C-alpha cells in the first residue's frame, strides 16, 4: 500500500471522493438487531406479509371505534365535518363527485390494517393492540356492508375478504394513453380561431382572503354578543345561550383533542370540565408538557384573559406547549369558546 493510499484509508473515506468508490463497502453502520427490526418493520403487504397473529369481531370493533375514532370519523365511519369519511360511496367513482372510502375505493384490506395500526388514531398513533386493530378493521368493513355483524377478522381469514374496488386500478399508462402529448413541434401561429373566457375564478370566490371576509359577516348576532363579554357583563349574569351555541361550534376545532361534559376523558389533550378559572396544568391523570408544568408551578390560573391569550396563539403564548393547535383568529370565537367551557363549570 502506498503512503497515499494509507492516508486515504485512515482518513474519513468521504473526504476524498474525486473517484467515488462505488461497489466497495465502507464498513459504516452497525447490524440491526432482531428486536429493532421487529419494532420498526410493521408494514403489511397485500399478501398479508407482516400481519401479526390476532383477531377481533365487529361488535368489539364498534366499541373501540367509538372510543378512539368516532370523534373525527363519526360513529358509523361516515366522517365528521372535514375529517375523512371511511364508509359509503360505493358506485360513485364515475360520478362527478366520487366519494372514495375504504369500502368504495381501497383495493387491499392490508392497507387498512397497516394504516390504522401505524398512523391512527391521529395524535396518538401506534397505541392500539393488534386485536384492537383487527376489531376496528372488522367494524370498518361492516360499516361498508362488506361483512355482516357476526364477522370476526383474524390473520387466518384475512386474505378471504374481497374488497369491492380491488379490480379498479390500472398501472400508469400515460406513455401510451397520452402518447399524443409527445408532439415535439407544437403549433405556433393561428392555432385557434377564437378564444373566449369560459370560467373565472373570481366568480367562484374561494381564494382565502374572500373566504375570511365571508364568515366574518355571517354571524352578526355572535359579534354583538362578544361585545357584551368584552364589557365584562358576563360574570354576573347568566351565560348567554347564543354565545354558548357559537362556542359549541368553535369547540369543533378542539374536539379532536379535548372532550368536555359528562364522562369526558383525556384524549390528546386533557378533559376540560371546569377549566375556566382553574389552575393551569392541574387536571388529574393527564401528562402535561414541561412548559405547562413550569407555568403551573409559577401559579398560572386560567382566567378569561389568560385563556384568551393562550387560545389566540398557543405556541407563542407558551413556548414548548404540547397543544399543537394554530390558535383561534377571531376574538369572538375565543370569547364564545370560553363561555362554552364555562357552561361546564368554572
Amino acid at each position, binding site marked *: 500500500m502506498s503512503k497515499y493510499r494509507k492516508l486515504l484509508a485512515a482518513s474519513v473515506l*468521504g473526504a476524498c471522493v474525486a473517484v*467515488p468508490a*462505488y461497489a466497495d*463497502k*465502507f464498513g*459504516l*453502520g*452497525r*447490524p*440491526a438487531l432482531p428486536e*429493532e427490526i421487529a419494532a*420498526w418493520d*410493521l*408494514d*403489511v*403487504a*397485500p*399478501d398479508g406479509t407482516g400481519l401479526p397473529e390476532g383477531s377481533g369481531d365487529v361488535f368489539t370493533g364498534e366499541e373501540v371505534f367509538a372510543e378512539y375514532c368516532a370523534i373525527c370519523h363519526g360513529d358509523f365511519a361516515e366522517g365528521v365535518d*372535514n375529517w375523512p369519511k371511511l364508509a359509503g360511496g360505493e358506485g360513485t*367513482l*364515475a360520478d362527478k363527485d*366520487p366519494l372514495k372510502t375504504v369500502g368504495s*375505493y*381501497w*383495493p*387491499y384490506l*392490508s*392497507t387498512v390494517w*397497516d*394504516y390504522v395500526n401505524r*398512523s391512527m388514531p391521529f395524535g396518538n*398513533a*401506534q397505541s392500539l393492540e393488534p386485536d384492537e386493530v383487527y376489531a376496528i378493521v372488522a367494524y370498518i368493513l361492516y360499516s361498508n356492508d362488506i361483512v355482516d355483524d357476526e364477522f370476526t377478522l383474524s390473520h387466518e381469514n384475512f386474505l378471504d375478504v374481497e374488497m369491492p374496488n380491488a379490480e*379498479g*386500478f*390500472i*398501472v*400508469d399508462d*400515460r406513455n401510451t394513453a*397520452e402518447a399524443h*402529448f*409527445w408532439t*415535439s413541434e*407544437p403549433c*405556433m*401561429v*393561428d*392555432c*385557434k380561431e377564437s*378564444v373566449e*373566457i*369560459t*370560467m*373565472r*375564478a373570481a366568480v367562484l370566490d374561494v381564494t*382565502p382572503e374572500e*373566504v375570511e371576509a365571508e364568515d366574518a359577516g355571517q354571524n352578526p348576532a355572535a359579534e354583538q354578543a362578544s361585545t357584551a363579554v368584552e364589557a365584562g357583563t358576563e360574570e354576573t349574569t347568566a351565560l348567554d345561550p347564543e354565545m354558548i351555541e357559537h362556542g359549541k361550534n368553535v369547540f369543533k376545532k378542539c374536539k*379532536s383533542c379535548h372532550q368536555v361534559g359528562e364522562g369526558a376523558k383525556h384524549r390528546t389533550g386533557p378533559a376540560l370540565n371546569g377549566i375556566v378559572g382553574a389552575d393551569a396544568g392541574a387536571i388529574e391523570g393527564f401528562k402535561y408538557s414541561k412548559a405547562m408544568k413550569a407555568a403551573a408551578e409559577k401559579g398560572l390560573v386560567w382566567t378569561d384573559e389568560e385563556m384568551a391569550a393562550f387560545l389566540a396563539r398557543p405556541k407563542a403564548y407558551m413556548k414548548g406547549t404540547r397543544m399543537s393547535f*394554530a390558535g383561534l*383568529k377571531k376574538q369572538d370565537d375565543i370569547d364564545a369558546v370560553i363561555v362554552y367551557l364555562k357552561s361546564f363549570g368554572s
Partner: protein
Amino acid sequence: MSENSKDKAPSRRQFLSGAAAVGVGAIGAGAARAAGPDPLITQVQEWAQATGEGVDATPYGLPIQFEKDVVRRNVEWLTADTISSINFTPIHALDGTITPQGCAFERHHSGAIELSKPDYRLMINGLVDTPLVFTYEDLERFPRENRVYFCECAANTGMEWAGAQLNGAQFTHGMIHNMEYSGVPLRTLLEEVGVKPEGKWVYVEGADASSNGRSIPLEKAMDDVLVAFKANGEALRKEHGYPVRLVVPGWEGNMWVKWLRRVEVTAMAIESREETSKYTDTLEDGTSRKWTWVMDAKSVVTSPSPQAPITHGPGPLVITGLAWSGRGSITGVDVSVDGGKNWIPARLAAPGTDKALTRFYLDHNWDGSEMLLQARAKDSTGYVQPSKAQLRDVRGENSIYHNNCIQTWWIKETGEAENVEVS
C-alpha cells in the same frame, strides 16, 4: 405561520392604492417626466445620516420587514386542520430558480416534528445481506453529491381540474420548490447492505406519527435517489424533514419521505395508504391509475399574475415564470398573450437542467390592452404541456393529482389579473 399571514393577503384594495401611488409615472409609455424634484433625492434621508443595525442584530437573518408579504399561505377549507395539511410557496413573488427554505411549501401528515441529529437512526432491512442501522454521523461519512431538483406535490393545481378556482399562482401552482441538496445516493447505502436478487422494490418510511411510507422500484432507488441532509447549503428545515429526507428526482413530492427512518427492500409494492387511497388518479370511467410517479412537464407564468398585477402601465413589461419536467430537462417555453392563438418562444434564463426548475422571461412591450397569458413547456423527451381540454379528454375531471395543464391569466387593462379558463 399561516394564520396571521392571512391578514396580509394582498387585497384588491392594496392593489388599487398601489396602482394609484405610481399613477403619475404610469401614464403613457416611454420615459416619464418628473413633475418636480424628487425629495427622496433632494433631501438628506434619515438612512443616509444615522447609522443602521450592527452586525449581530440578527445572528440568523430573515428577510427585511418590507418583504413580509412573501410567505407561505394555506387554504383553510382544503383540510380539517393544519396538522395534516399543505401550504403554498409564494412563487408569484420569487425570481430565479432556487426556493429559499423559509418560504418553501410544507405538506405534513402528522405535523412537523423535531428530531435531533443524535436521536436520528436510519435502518435498512428486508431482502438484504446485512440489515444495518446508521446514525447521522455515519451518513456524513459516505461520499456525497450536490444536486438541484424540484419537488412538486402531486396535488399541485389539483383544485383546478373542474374549473378555475383559486386566484393566484401561489395557490394554483405553489406546491413546488426547488433546492440544491447535499446528500448520499441511496444506491451507496443499498450497496453497503447488499440487496438480495429477490429484492425488486424499496419501501421508504418516515419517523413522524403518520409514518408516511411509499414503495419505489429498485431501479429508481439505484438511479438518482438521494438521502439528503442539506438544502441550499444549510441543514434541512424541520418542516422539510430535518435531519434527513429522501429526494426522489422528478417524482411526486409525497415520495420524498421526510424524517426518513427506514428503507426496506421488498419483493413487491406495499400498497400503503399513500399509494392506494391517495396519490392514485381516478379517470372518467371510475377506474384509477396507480403508480403515477413521474411529474409531467409543466409551466406557469408567475408574474404578472393575480397576486402580482401590473402596476406600471403600458410599456416594457417582464413576463416571467417557471417550467419543469420530471422526465428530464426543459428545452423550451412558449408564451401566448392571446389565449393560445399565437405563441412566442420565451428566453430561458439558463439552459434547462435535469428535473429542476427553469426560469423563463418574455421581454414584452405591453400596449395596455387585455391579455390572456399562457405558458407552454417542452421537455427533453419531446413532451409538450397539454391544454386543460386535452388533459380532460384523457383523464376526466376527477384525477385530483397530476394536473399539468396550461394555465391562463386574464390580464385586464388596469393591470389586474385573474385566473380564468378559455375555450
